[in-house]
């Protein structure tokens, strides 16, 4: 199929519409037995017209999915330890460390050191566990927010909220991020080093009966979201290491470069 040479130039040039030639139809054009009518055509999803393109699409997907299922070979580095205070986890692959960091130190409550899978759940936890104003307000209005992303419903008690999540959102009754606290000890009594050894069931509660004593003194300005201090230091370090990894440097080299910058 030969295209006119000027076509590429036309594509490269600026936008524009052709000045249309005058349209002048003769009624005899559509007269029987002729039946042509110029009209745009529409095809619906199942139409056979789409068969070839759909088959190509699915062949492509098959290849992609086959490769997604493969677990990639992890590039190994000399073993190093997590730098977060109190965490003694050791790694020999940067991907593993990245995942560990995000899971355990990413969304961490600075009051009780509990880790959460997302900022959304961390915020809800801090509000419901560590904010004394929340407890006061919840006596007068519905404060327990539904935990499902995008749902704006609020409830008087955590029990009501759970019922809502089970009924409306088909969430499991034992949803692990909405479990009542087992012991009554206030959060501030827990040792900071706990987060590494927490068992699965207690890892990430959102709320329970309100905690009696808030760790913050009464006159202090309320902090709604308080990232752990270690994250403020570690995040840039992590980013730098990822950049260096992309550049092909080893972990040891990364530390060397960082140290020489101080």
């Amino acid at each position: 199929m030969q295209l006119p040479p000027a076509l590429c130039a036309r594509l490269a040039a600026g936008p524009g519409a052709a000045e249309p030639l005058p349209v002048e139809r003769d009624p005899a054009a559509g007269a029987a037995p002729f039946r042509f009518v110029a009209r745009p055509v529409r095809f619906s999803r199942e139409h056979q017209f789409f068969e070839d393109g759909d088959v190509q699409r699915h062949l492509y997907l098959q290849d992609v999915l086959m490769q997604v299922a493969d677990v990639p070979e992890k590039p190994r580095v000399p073993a190093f330890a997590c730098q977060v205070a109190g965490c003694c986890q050791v790694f020999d692959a940067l991907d593993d460390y990245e995942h560990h960091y995000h899971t355990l130190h990413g969304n961490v409550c600075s009051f009780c050191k509990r880790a959460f899978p997302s900022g959304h759940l961390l915020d809800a936890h801090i509000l419901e566990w560590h904010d004394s104003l929340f407890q006061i307000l919840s006596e007068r209005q519905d404060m327990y927010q539904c935990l499902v992303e995008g749902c704006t419903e609020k409830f008087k008690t955590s029990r009501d909220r759970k019922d809502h999540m089970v009924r409306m959102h088909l969430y499991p009754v034992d949803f692990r991020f909405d479990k009542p606290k087992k012991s009554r000890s206030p959060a501030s009594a827990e040792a900071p080093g706990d987060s590494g050894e927490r068992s699965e069931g207690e890892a990430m509660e959102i709320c329970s009966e309100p905690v009696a004593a808030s760790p913050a003194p009464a006159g202090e300005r309320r902090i709604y979201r308080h990232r752990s201090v270690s994250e403020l230091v570690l995040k840039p370090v992590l980013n730098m290491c990822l950049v260096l990894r992309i550049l092909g440097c080893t972990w040891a080299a990364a530390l060397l470069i960082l140290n020489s910058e101080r």
Partner: protein
Amino acid sequence: MWSRRQGRLRPTVCGVEELRRRRREREAALRKARREQQLVSKRLLRDDAPEEAGEGCVAAILGETEVQQFLRQAQRGTEEKEREGALVSLRRGLQHPETQQTFIRLEGSMRTLVGLLTSNQALLQLEAARCLHELSHSEQSTVAEACLPATSYLLTYLSGHSSDFIELCLYTLGNLIVESEAVRRQLLPQGIVPALAACIQSPHVAVLEALGYALSQLLQAEEAPEKIIPSILASTLPQHMLQMLQPGPKLNPGVAVEFAWCLHYIICSQVSNPLLIGHGALSTLGLLLLDLAGAVQKTEDAGLELLACPVLRCLSNLLTEAAVETVGGQMQLRDERVVAALFILLQFFFQKQPSLLPEGLWLLNNLTANSPSFCTSLLSLDLIEPLLQLLPVSNVVSVMVLTVLCNVAEKGPAYCQRLWPGPLLPALLHTLAFSDTEVVGQSLELLHLLFLYQPEAVQVFLQQSGLQALERHQEEAQLQDRVYALQQTALQG
């Protein structure tokens, strides 16, 4: 997109011939499935590649005791490495359908797996997710439905930060979505649409590609037009999807492919296309088409048709919306570069993927049908002859080429004057010799218009044995009337 995938390719011992044969088989299976309207079925998404050589790639089927043992070890082992190793062994076993069945029949197995999935031991979490991913590949909907207890957690993790983990969750969700309506019926109230709308703001390309995949599976569901697409259109997803399709340095082909297909499934369901037009879909897709034509000229990359196909479909279907006519200015597609780009793509299809020619010609029809401006562009850019060169490809293509030419000719004498003299008449005499009724019928329509608006063509037609060409079809029921009418016109002229 492609370079990343290649990096993860399993080494294979199959020869090129064997690969080709397998691909032909897969293609035949897909074609059959589509005709049975079963194309979204999971069994076709994962090619059951036979065990390929390589140490440790061949996993044994696990029995009930072994599954129990691995689960126990993973849950209660003392050494982290030991626990992780147990899950790895379990995952390998789960590649087999028999192990999957054993697993789901074992009481408490999914509960244990979900417990590990939600633990704060990151590596256990990852391995548990991989086990779940293996299960999601199953061809049996019972296995997919056994994964239902995990879906709320998969959705919760979409708002996390570990991109590899999120990617895995998305592919798992995508697989589960395809397999059973029961899963979809649960995922919708669990908030999959808001979760995806939040996740689509991730900067990670791999996450976006996975999200596009999951969304495309959701959109292909049979109940999608009534139950799924309205809530998607009501969310911020359409705007983000269109953003991913904007040409420029940030355009990632792998991501764009997924979202272009998502858009296609939405648009061809015809739920609320004016809304998409209002979001600028026409101009975004038009610019993307220009970009694709530019890319096609620069590179031999064979993957571009994967993106071109859905873009063509979206544009073609959108052009049928009344909103296109009424909304003025920016919303409409007027730029004649679109025609230039389309022809560059048609040439690319002609060389690399002829099966996509009808789709390109479909867009050309929809562009030219009601647009004197685009018809004029076809003439002024000298595109009639290239168009005629497509006639021999197939009957379907011939009919569409002739239809586009009719679109031009029916606009009147000013247009037909530019169609003749030229290669058109000889080409028509040639198509009149075809046996396909539709091709001949369309040729007759075009002849009629040509004779009406450019009567001088009649003489030449007669001189080139036009009457004999017509006579061949005198007996054909669908053509008789038109043949007769043309014969009369020719003899009187």
